[in-house]
């Protein structure tokens, strides 16, 4: 059994084929890193998993996708998304909600917490797991624009965690934040894998080396190599993977 199982998945956006027969297996409770140069289809791949791809008009998906045992293509996407948290490339906390409400809204919508006390607890738990609690403990009712970029991104992680997801999708979460915050986020991610399965897109080889259990290399819409991280980092078999891991792509 796998958390995510893709068989021969192709995605067409408009007339363009973005994914070309991707086959992928993500084991439970691991950090699975997808690497690849920009434009290789990494983000699209994540958006297939939680079906955010539906929002793109004119997108077409072929092949089979199993997520947490459900057939993602026929399952109700709104039910599916309750099981999957996501953090985006650009920090996008809701600007009209306070720090507290940004996290609480995710917990309430998914029925994770109902009473005021339960919500309080979940918010605190999520912020702690996102390693943000100490910094915002006494300013929970401030708005996100008063936070730094890195703090905002960790707030987004907390929002995703507050749903108590079983699968967490991270789309280059450290691409737009400073190194110190990036390190904190990485720490948080690694500490999470006992509770959730993490699928993370990145193009920093060092970051991948630090957090990954498994790695898949995506190039031009195809998976050119995948396997346990150690094995792949020590002996990359393809030219593309070698270049990518050396940071040359």
């Amino acid at each position, binding site marked *: 059994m796998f958390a995510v199982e893709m068989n021969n998945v192709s995605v067409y956006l408009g007339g363009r084929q973005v994914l070309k027969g991707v086959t992928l297996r993500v084991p439970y409770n691991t950090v699975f890193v997808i690497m690849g140069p920009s434009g290789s289809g990494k983000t699209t791949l994540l958006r297939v998993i939680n*079906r955010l*791809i*539906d929002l793109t008009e004119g*997108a*077409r*998906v072929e092949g089979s996708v199993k997520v947490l045992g459900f057939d993602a293509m026929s399952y*109700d*996407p*709104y039910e599916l998304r309750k099981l999957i948290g996501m953090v985006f490339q650009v920090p996008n906390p809701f600007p009209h909600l306070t720090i507290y409400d940004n996290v609480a809204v995710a917990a309430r919508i998914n029925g994770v917490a109902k009473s005021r006390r339960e919500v309080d607890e979940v918010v605190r738990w999520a912020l702690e797991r996102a390693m943000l609690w100490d910094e915002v403990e006494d300013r929970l009712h401030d708005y996100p624009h008063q936070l730094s970029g890195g703090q905002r991104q960790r707030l987004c992680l907390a929002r995703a965690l507050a749903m108590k997801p079983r699968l967490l999708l991270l789309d280059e979460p450290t691409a737009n934040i400073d190194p110190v915050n990036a390190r904190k986020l990485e720490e948080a991610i690694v500490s999470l894998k006992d509770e959730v399965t993490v699928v993370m897109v990145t193009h920093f080889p060092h970051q991948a080396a630090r957090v990954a259990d498994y790695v898949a290399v995506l190039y031009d819409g195809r998976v050119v190599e995948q396997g346990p991280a150690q094995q792949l980092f020590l002996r990359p078999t393809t030219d593309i993977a070698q270049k990518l891991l050396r940071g040359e792509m």
Partner: protein
Amino acid sequence: MRSKRDKLFLLSLLPLSLSLLAILIISIITMVLKSVDALQRFGFQLFASSGWSPENEAYGLLAPIVGSLTVSALAVLTALIFSLPLTIMIAEYLQGIVRGVVSSIVELMGGLPTIVYAVWASQYLVPLLKQFLMEPLHSALPFIPLFSCRPVTGFSILAAGISIGISTVPYVTALTLEAYQSIPSIYREACYGIGATRYESIKIMISLAKPAIVASLILGFARALGETTIAAVTVGNSMYLSSCLFAPGYTVAALIASQFADAYLYPYAESVLYVSILIVVLISVALSFYGSTTMIRWRSRIIV
């Protein structure tokens, strides 16, 4: 690719959204059905003569239709004379607070209820135009047919044209300003790069924006055509078709404003008025579409 919930969401939006479509269709059907009677009874004759005497069943729409077109043309001309310099002023010369204040004034003018323009125009502008524009033009150039009559009250085709024109300035300015400012700055930099003065660079910028300016004027014309309040108060309400701009006249909207309320009392009167508005609506909708598509096409070409 759409899930069941997405379809339900779309369906839940449809009933109320489609009311817009329903309103448009019902309006068009009403106007057409109401026009049929008069068109069948009078035919082309309706557009070839001028007159309004419901008692004798004698109707002619030539004067108000020509009046509407003339007034709108004058309005657009007025709007052009003021809008273009105002656009250049705001875009090229003004900065900081002054620029903010001037563009706020233009915006304020844009939403002002037209009835306020109408009051001001009838009480201040028309007498002013009579004294300082119409009378001098008449005494200096009486041999030109457009200026051949002596302005009696001042309430005339010209007065309506200029009054509506002034009320259209903010609308046209907003459109041209938006177009002017959407020209990528590389063009201006290129102008200065080859040593052009400000005047020379503005000349090039204006020539780049020309299709958009023409489109703004077309949209302004469409809007002026339907303007009722200012027209009714300044045009002088006369069915007499004159070649002179200083003579009182009618526009379709002004004719309707003064005659429609009692029109149901006479056979055909209501229908004749529907014919007149149908023509105005057709011209106005066609011009608006032409104007806005020209604008969109220009924008997609200028922005690289």
